[in-house]
């Protein structure tokens, strides 16, 4: 089975990629200035003994290579270690963070895709008209704004109407599932909207340009010559071909979003992966940093693979070429 072999090879490549990233992260974190013991013992009573004890406990007294081999051994058993800060298994901390991040990324992505692709299609179909100029200007403008700035502007506008931070209302006691979901939704709205506004611009620009390119392709002219309505030609012939580059871009950006909504999660105190990365870096919590960046790496690689798979479903040329090689 040729396709299976292709998939196998892609997975092996992904494995190597993840190992490289893990190794790079491991040494990078330890070479960066500051160390976890200083961070933790910077309390008034922090004695020399306490520092030495923590260093031994964290295994930081060993040579870096020994630490690395130990880390890989642990990792191969699926053990991500224990957080220096809260002494909980990193895996547990991360699962909580991922569960919290998914709805944020999911809704944010939905907003970005609907807004981005919709606007891109309109701009491409009405190329050169006011709607095109409007869409391109808006997309470029939003894309060039820093995420945390958009977040703060939204906070400024909606503070009071919508909750400004956190995931759930701490004072909601024993909520019914419906109450809980409604509360979560209210908290989710602003950060997800921020994420959507940050992301949609690039989708619009890519979608527009591939739409313009596709609409000038000969098979679109053929479809028009066949006497189909412009809308049918757009939907049946231009759209699927124009979507291809956007699918790749979306795949790339979902991966980055899972770990990369750092600024947004910090602004809105959202306890997700981005926030975990931020907190663990501040505390130099090596195991948490390694774990969080691993999630980041894996999600980028994974969604890349998924985008490739989606691409080959949409484009028969890729499908056959992949199978033949």
């Amino acid at each position, binding site marked *: 089975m040729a396709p299976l072999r292709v998939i196998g090879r892609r997975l092996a490549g992904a494995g190597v990629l993840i190992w490289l990233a893990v190794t790079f992260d491991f040494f990078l974190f330890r070479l960066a200035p500051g160390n976890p013991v200083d961070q933790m013992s910077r309390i008034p009573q922090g004695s020399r003994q306490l520092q030495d004890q923590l260093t031994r406990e964290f295994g930081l007294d060993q040579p870096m290579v020994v630490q690395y081999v130990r880390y890989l051994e642990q990792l191969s058993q699926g053990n991500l270690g224990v957080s220096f800060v809260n002494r909980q298994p990193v895996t547990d901390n991360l699962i909580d963070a991922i569960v919290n991040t998914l709805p944020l990324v999911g809704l944010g992505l939905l907003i970005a895709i609907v807004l981005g692709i919709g606007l891109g299609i309109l701009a491409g179909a009405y190329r050169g008209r006011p709607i095109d100029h409007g869409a391109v200007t808006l997309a470029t403008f939003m894309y060039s704004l820093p995420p945390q700035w958009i977040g703060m502007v939204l906070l400024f506008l909606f503070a009071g109407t919508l909750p400004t931070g956190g995931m759930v209302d701490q004072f909601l006691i024993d909520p019914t599932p419906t109450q809980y979901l409604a509360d979560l939704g209210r908290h989710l709205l602003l950060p997800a909207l921020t994420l959507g506004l940050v992301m949609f611009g690039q989708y619009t620009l890519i979608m527009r340009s591939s739409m313009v390119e596709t609409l000038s392709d000969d098979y679109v002219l053929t479809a028009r*010559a*066949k*006497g189909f*309505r412009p809308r049918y030609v757009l939907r*049946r*012939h231009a759209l699927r071909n124009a979507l291809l580059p956007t699918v790749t871009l979306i795949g790339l950006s979902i991966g980055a979003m899972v770990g990369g909504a750092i600024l947004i999660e910090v602004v809105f105190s959202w306890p997700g992966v981005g926030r975990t990365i931020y907190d663990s870096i501040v505390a130099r919590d090596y195991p948490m940093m390694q774990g969080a960046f691993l999630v980041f790496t894996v999600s980028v690689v994974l969604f890349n693979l998924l985008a490739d798979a989606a691409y080959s479903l949409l484009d*028969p040329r890729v499908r056959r070429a992949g199978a033949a090689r």
Partner: protein
Amino acid sequence: MSTTTTGCLDVRGLDVTLRSGEGRDLHLVRDVTFSVGSGERFGLIGESGCGKTTTLMSLMGLLGADATVGGEVRIDGTEILGSGERDVRRRRWSEIAVVFQGAMNSLNPVVTIGRQIAEAARRGAGSGSGVRERVHRVLELVGLRAEVARRYPHELSGGMRQRVAIAMAVVCEPRVLLADEPTTALDVIVQAQVLTALENACAETGAALVLVSHDMGVIGEVCDRAAVMYGGEIVETGRIETLLHEPAHPYTRLLVDASPRLSDPGRELASIPGAPPRPGVDHAGCGFAPRCPDRFEPCGSHGPALLPVATALQQARCHLHHPPAEEAP
């Protein structure tokens, strides 16, 4: 079969003007008149930029909003120009279909051949019933196996794709079939297959064929009659044998001399000095005069008219045959 009788496709005084960005109008096609009978095969020959493709696109109503099309175009006596976008769309493919230049790219890369032809088939009368059979029949007509229907365009060779484009064009049995350089970029063997496919398709459906090419050989092989275009105008029209053996216009003669001939392989090929006029640029006198070896007094100042030469079947736009006697000093 002169241009005065009503054919299946009747084009009279076709004029295409393109509004350019700077407010200057480009007159791309001027006063083009020809008529093609049912089952007849008519050629349009000329160099790049002479208005052949623009003529075809205006017949399909596919020129953009920047283009103004004047004149009359009738299919079976019914005027189709200016009948409204909706009506033009209805006629496309069911009455007038086209095989595009470089049809290798005129197929959607992500849709199977069969579905693309079936989609076209639904444009015609009797839609719905037996679409599958019709798809297989037209594929067979152009010499392709029915199994090609399940393939994607990238899995076929250039010649096969071109034949698919022809099959797709005749699936609704249109009254008029336009073909724009259908054999460009194909090697000679494949070219012959494609032309045979085109001839078979027309013979089977009785469509009037308008074949556009820069290649005198291709036109000579397929067509009964032809028109030579230069600078947006028809400069000579007549039966193909007449054009090849007794060309009346110097440009036609030079075109014939510039094409290789199997009967005379040792002959040196002529080339036409100079470049064709920039599309849409107005000129006093005959458009070909600057490159014409036979030009004389009136050519630079008076534009010649398209008038019969010898018989009514052959017409040429040249002072050599109709000197503007009354205006000469």
